[in-house]
């Protein structure tokens, strides 16, 4: 559905997107995961014909982003990072305006607007001015607008940025619903690990304008090699490393950190051999994958979803 070949965007000396080659399949939900300034939005803007690439090429729905911008635009819907509706108009009027800009025939216009309003749960508020909407509602209106012309490809640029946790989860439900009901390819950028994990079929981790990893969320996590158990014990580490299900033992802050295949299965075995004061275990999260790949923590990361919070504690 999308083919990107050696795409480059430079701003003076700064390379925002560095020789990107990537294929995105039909009807998949693809996540571009990276910290702020990694180049995610620049990629989206180029694919949406708002920015011209410095070099390289890309096609969206078979149309070239530089030579056939009008065709690309008719094929895509986009939700920008910041809501872009006119807040003096009502939700309905905004959709009406855009349905005309997308040349939706007059006789199907009203029906389609009602459909998308229902899909994002804004039917009740459709005749209120957008300035009275909450952040989450505005974001949903943007999604409705993006869906109006039944695009083949939907871009969601940080769809939950700045939303509170409850609105974020609501938003996820709507995104999952639109993927189910509208059958389209979705490209989503985010710096929330949890969001990418829940929503995406495949994830490209992007750092400094390059894709540093590309796989399913499961595959990315499996790449780190199993689970981790942390124990506090006076027991000899060397003896523990001789246990056959323990791959590796490291010491950290008075804890022993053991790498194992499956913490839930291996932990009871371990406790048969070892007397421990404190035991914690966790599966790797995308956040761990990210740190492993880039050597940095995600900027502006959310408190929830990180490794530490995933520890189950047994005192």
């Amino acid at each position, binding site marked *: 559905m999308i083919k990107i070949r050696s795409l480059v965007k430079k701003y003076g000396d700064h390379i925002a997107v560095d020789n990107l080659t990537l294929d995105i399949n039909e009807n998949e939900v693809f996540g571009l995961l990276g910290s702020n300034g990694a180049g995610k939005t620049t990629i989206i803007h180029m694919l949406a014909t708002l920015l011209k690439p410095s070099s390289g090429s890309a096609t969206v729905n078979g149309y070239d982003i530089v030579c056939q911008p009008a065709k690309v635009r008719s094929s*895509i819907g986009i939700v920008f990072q910041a809501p872009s509706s*006119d807040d*003096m108009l009502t939700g309905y009027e905004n959709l009406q305006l855009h349905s005309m800009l997308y040349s939706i025939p007059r006789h199907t216009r009203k029906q389609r607007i009602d459909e998308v309003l229902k899909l994002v749960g804004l039917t009740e508020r459709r005749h209120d001015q957008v300035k009275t909407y909450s952040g989450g509602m505005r974001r949903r209106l943007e999604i409705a607008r993006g869906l109006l012309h039944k695009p083949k490809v939907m871009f969601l640029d940080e769809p939950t940025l700045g939303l509170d946790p409850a609105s974020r989860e609501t938003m996820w439900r709507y995104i999952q619903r639109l993927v189910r009901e509208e059958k389209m390819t979705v490209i989503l950028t985010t710096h929330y690990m949890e969001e990418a994990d829940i929503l995406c079929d495949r994830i490209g981790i992007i750092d400094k304008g390059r894709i540093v990893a590309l796989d399913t969320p499961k595959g990315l996590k499996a790449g780190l090699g199993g689970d981790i158990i942390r124990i506090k014990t006076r027991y000899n580490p060397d003896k523990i490393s001789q246990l056959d299900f323990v791959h590796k033992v490291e010491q950290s802050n008075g804890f022993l950190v053991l790498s194992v295949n499956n913490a839930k299965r291996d932990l009871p075995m371990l406790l048969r051999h070892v007397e421990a004061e404190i035991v914690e275990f966790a599966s790797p999260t995308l956040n761990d994958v990210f740190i492993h790949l880039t050597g940095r923590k995600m900027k502006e990361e959310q408190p929830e979803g990180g490794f530490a919070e995933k520890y189950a504690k047994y005192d």
Partner: protein
Amino acid sequence: MQNTISMQDHLAKVYALWLREFKVFLRERSRLVASTFTPILWLFVIGSGLGSAAPSELPPGVDYQQFIFPGIVSMSIIFTSVFYGSYIIWDRKFDFLKSVMVAPVSRTTVFVGKTLGGMTNSLIQATILLAIGVAMGIPFTPLSLAQAAAVVLLMSFGLTSLGLALGSYMYSLEGFQMIVSFVVFPLFFLSGALFPLDNLPEWLSVLTAADPATYGVDALRNLMLGTGTYGVELDLAILVGYTAALGAFGVYSFGRMKAV
């Protein structure tokens, strides 16, 4: 088939964009009140105040307040139209512009829709002022009212184009303040809105002759008071020329405007 998009489709999109401008205008009534109040203040305070000091060069049978009336109508058009350019900066600031740019809509369509919005705005204000003019005893006929409205639209098209073109190069509203000082006030003061053009010093008459608004003021004065400097045909010819050039400048500027 990008180039076979029908005229009808283009017009439907222009209509959609214009309708949005018009609805916003109707909902922001404070905008209308504020921008109508200033010209009225000029008309009555400056008109009566300076009128009592009576410049001697006025055409016979016309008092100063009547004399500046076409100028004040022009002033309202100059301010409203050029200021309209700041709304393209607002559109950019609130990302509305981005959402339009990513739709299959040409830049020219966006420009025309926006310009028609500005013209509508100016026409509504001018209509209020023309009603005041009728009450003031300006000798209108239905024909001269219609002709005056046509001049208002022509002027407003040119000046809205100018404002939007300048606005398309700017990213902050603070920057637009400069346009007020360097464009709006010179256009107004040099237009002969407040004084007769006949006995000006050489340097000033060169500047007034270069000001497109001069011909709008003169055309309106011809139509409303039957007195003027150039004659209404010449006024209209020059106004059409200026307007076409400013419209082209607007289309060009929107074409090269950055989308993000």
